[in-house]
């Protein structure tokens, strides 16, 4: 991790981590608000169980504290690139279904989408600081979805938002771990902090 040796790189990484943490914090807050709105507007049950979204790596992972920084960043980047595609798809579906009738829901989805994109940018920056060029988006992202019914689309949207909220929590913990002034390349375990 060449960048770690440079004080400016360390500051840059620290700044990116700090702002990334706050970004995912706000993203989580907005996603939780959006979840309530989404359930209400889509006529869903907030307690409905939704299957795991295909194409999105699960936020929950075993041996989390043993992950390296780069590994964390790559998993986060993969997840958020997937969320970006899914949210863009949800936004398109929402516009097709509701048109301009529910502009507030559309604006909220677009806002979350932007935040996901911004966080993905953060992660790419951090990866560059880790001397790792971010992987191309060619292979990332969820696989093409088969044609789903309207209800299935709604349920899938609910699942995406829930998973995003969980990832927001994990991402904050990952970035805090990365922000710690550990000289290693991320192999050293960081302290677990709740967001």
């Amino acid at each position, binding site marked *: 991790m060449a960048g770690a040796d440079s004080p400016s790189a360390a500051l840059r990484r620290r700044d990116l981590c700090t*702002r*990334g943490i*706050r*970004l995912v*914090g*706000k993203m*989580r*807050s*907005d996603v939780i*608000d959006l979840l309530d709105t989404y359930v209400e507007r889509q006529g869903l049950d907030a307690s409905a169980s939704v299957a795991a979204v295909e194409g999105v790596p699960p936020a929950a992972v075993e041996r989390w504290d043993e992950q390296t920084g780069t590994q964390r960043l790559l998993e986060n980047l993969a997840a958020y690139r997937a969320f970006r595609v899914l949210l863009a798809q949800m936004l398109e579906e929402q516009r097709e279904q509701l048109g301009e009738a529910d502009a507030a829901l559309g*604006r909220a989805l677009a*806002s979350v989408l*932007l*935040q996901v*994109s*911004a966080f993905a*940018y*953060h992660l*790419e920056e951090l990866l560059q600081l880790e001397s790792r060029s971010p992987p191309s988006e060619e292979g990332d992202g969820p696989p093409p979805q088969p044609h789903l019914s309207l209800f299935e689309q709604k349920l899938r949207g609910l699942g995406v938002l829930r998973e995003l909220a969980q990832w927001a929590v994990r991402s904050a913990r990952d970035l805090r771990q990365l922000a710690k002034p550990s000289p290693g390349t991320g192999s050293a375990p960081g302290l677990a902090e709740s967001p």
Partner: protein
Amino acid sequence: MFSEWNWVAYGFYLLLNICSLEASGGLVQSCGHIIPESPVLALGSNFTALCILNESCLDFGNIYANQIIWKIKNKVVPKEQYREINRTVSSVTFNDTSSLATPLTCNILADGQIEQNIYGITVTVGLPPEKPKNLSCIVHQVSKLIYRMVCTWNPGRHTFLDTQFRLKYRWPQENFPDCIPKDVNNSCTIPDVHFFVNLEIWVEAANALGKAESDPLVLDPIDIVKPLPPHNLSVSSVLPTVLKLSWVNLITNPVMKLKFNIRYKIIGDTNWMEVPSEDTASPRTSFSVQGLQPYTEYAFSIRCMKEDGVGYWSDWSENKTGITTEDKPSKGPSVWRIIDASHSPDSWTLHLMWKALKPSEANGVILQYELTVRDKSTLSSPVEKYNVTSNNLTLQLPNGTYEVTVVARNRIGASPPSVLLIPASNSKAPVTNLKALPKYDKLWVGWTAPNSYVLKYVIEWCLVSSRSDCIIEWQIALGDVQGMDLKGIKPFKCYLITVYPLYADGQGSGQSVKAYLKQDRPSKGPTVQTKKVGKAEAVLTWNHLTVDEQNGFIRNYTILYKTIDGNETVVTVDPSKTEYTLSSLTSDTLYTVRMMASTDNGSRSGPDFTFTTQKFGKGEIEAIVVPVCLAFLLTVLLGVLFCFNKRDLIKKHIWPIVPDPSKSNIAQWSPQVSAKHNISSKDQMYPEGSFTDVSVVEIEADDKKTFSEQDLKPFDLLKKEKSTSEGHSSGIGGSSCMSSPRQSVSDSDEGETQNTSSTVQYSTVVLNGYRDQTPVQVFSRSESTQPLLDSEERSEDHTGGGDSTPQRQQYFRQNGGQDETSADRPCFERTKQITHANEGDLVGFVQLQISGQSSQPLGFGMEKSTQEAGLSNVFQTSTEGQTVRPETVEENPLSVHEMPKSYLPQTVRQGGYMPQ
């Protein structure tokens, strides 16, 4: 020749038009065009335009480029700027586009000097946009989730062209749509921003002449947020000095951690206090404000910003009020007294008064004051207790030393006691050097402390006014101060300030001073008037202005006086005086005087008063009058003495010596005559129709001696006058109208008329009745003019008024004709009145006329005929009765002529009177 050229030009013009129609396929087609077409030019740059003629026009009209004329807005461009490129192209060059104007036209001067427009273009001159500067952005929180970013910049100079500004922003990997300003060119609002990602922001300005971009601004919008202030602020009371604030933040913790400012103030105050910022530098939703005053209403307000201080403070929230709970009073009330010992020397009326505690001291609602009064003169005297709700207490106490304590009590408890020691007499040392000076808007009172330790000072003051009593206000100052500001002092009012030092064991006597917070000129001037005015001085008096009119300390009075046309004289008078004497005034002169009262801040004059100095000074009149009177008296005295000394001489001149008939020789025959004259009735005196009673005067030789020549002179004069005025009567008895002896001669008619009945008595001479001579009444005919009043009276008695009147008239008639011009009118009128006698009298009258004629000196009778003719008319118009009289008189001429031989006075008439 000229007409031929016109026809040629007209044909050429038609040809041009035909060419145009043909070239445009039926519409107007010009014979050329300009390159560039409607350019936009930078101001100050150079510019070249080309006019290109169509070949077709060359063939028809022989038009070539050398005939082209360039014009700017109908003004021909100088030919120096032209250049003929070839026979169809002409160019014009402008070194500075600022001289350009629209339109720029290409014209041709055809044969016949006719100018024809070929083409024209519109030239737009402007400036390229400047680089926008000073780009700055702020993110306003609109609601809990919505943030708007407003960016502003300096657009630079005016370009004179339509210039578009665009606010551009992007993430490193994502572009956002441009923000285009509406109606303005220096700001734009981005409706939705996202935090925690650096945003690159810049402004692009573009117009026809170019494009310019500002320096990019890279920032995380979270660092420029101006959040909404916390809302739902509430205040709850915890302790008498603590209030707890609670609120709700409108920005979530994940987005932004906040710090706060809390400010508060007592309701009614204007100044805010702030909770120390370090106490509220962390995120929170409540805070307890401590150190407040009990039972006090406070207003609170709160604001927030990002915890790290990057960004902007929110606006202050709306005020929220809360009241702390009560506490017991923190101090006792200040207490003072006024002692009225005027009623009795042995007892006092003690007015105790204390000030209400300030809210910050009362700490609640004062329910009552508890007083104790202890007589320190006697140890065994009980302590008197009083509970009052007012701020004063009046007690009747015997003269002595007392200790008074006052305690204020509210719902929570009682204050510490305030103690006032009231000694029997203020025997301690007073303050010195007491002075009062205005300082800013307050009156500062300063003093020098006594040598002894002073617990505190009491400063009393009251407004001195002639309209109201001096209402005492007071204030207590601590013993370590030597001055204080008095509050509530009005300007232009006189205050009496007294300072008492309070010792642990007594009081010092009060020292007083008068002071004004601010002085003004007096509201009116003194009214001056004179108390006394002399010849060269005047004593002026005036009354002092009342203290309400003074408006300040009267420093002096100024008296200004002048005459009407003189210069004004100014005299300055000490303000303690009410009288002044003006001296060296001019006598008998009108002076105008007015008086001016002056304070430190100006003067005001009273009304004008005028007075006139006296013409004479005191005693001058006496000095003049007394000598004059004395001189007059002296003159009179001298005159009297002179007259006394020269009385004989004067007597001769004034009272000529009347011949004394008693000393005439006729006295010798008077006894016979007297018996004869002793007649009591006319019948006896005048026997009818006879004039036998003629007296003959014989003058003895001895008697001649009694008449000196001097004595005879007047008679000579009389005789002369009588001789010159014929017809004059004897004039005996003088005239009742004329007192002069001379006149009495000439006017003796009336005298005679008054004694007409005594014609006989006239001849009566009283002998020895003059100068102590034995009066012997004799009767004699006399020419004397001296009145013989006794004889007259007697004759009147004898004859009666009715008889005398006609005779007087008769005499008058005789003399009136002789000296009509000299006759006095009163005499004449009087005569007329007398003629009103009744007809019965006329008989006597006629008779008397006859008798009168007989006794009248007949010298008159000669003139009677002519005189009566003259007077008859007069009397005829008077009364009818009078008309008889002339007839009566006319009957007498014969008797007149009969008398002269025997009547002695005829000789007198002829030769003058000679003593016989």
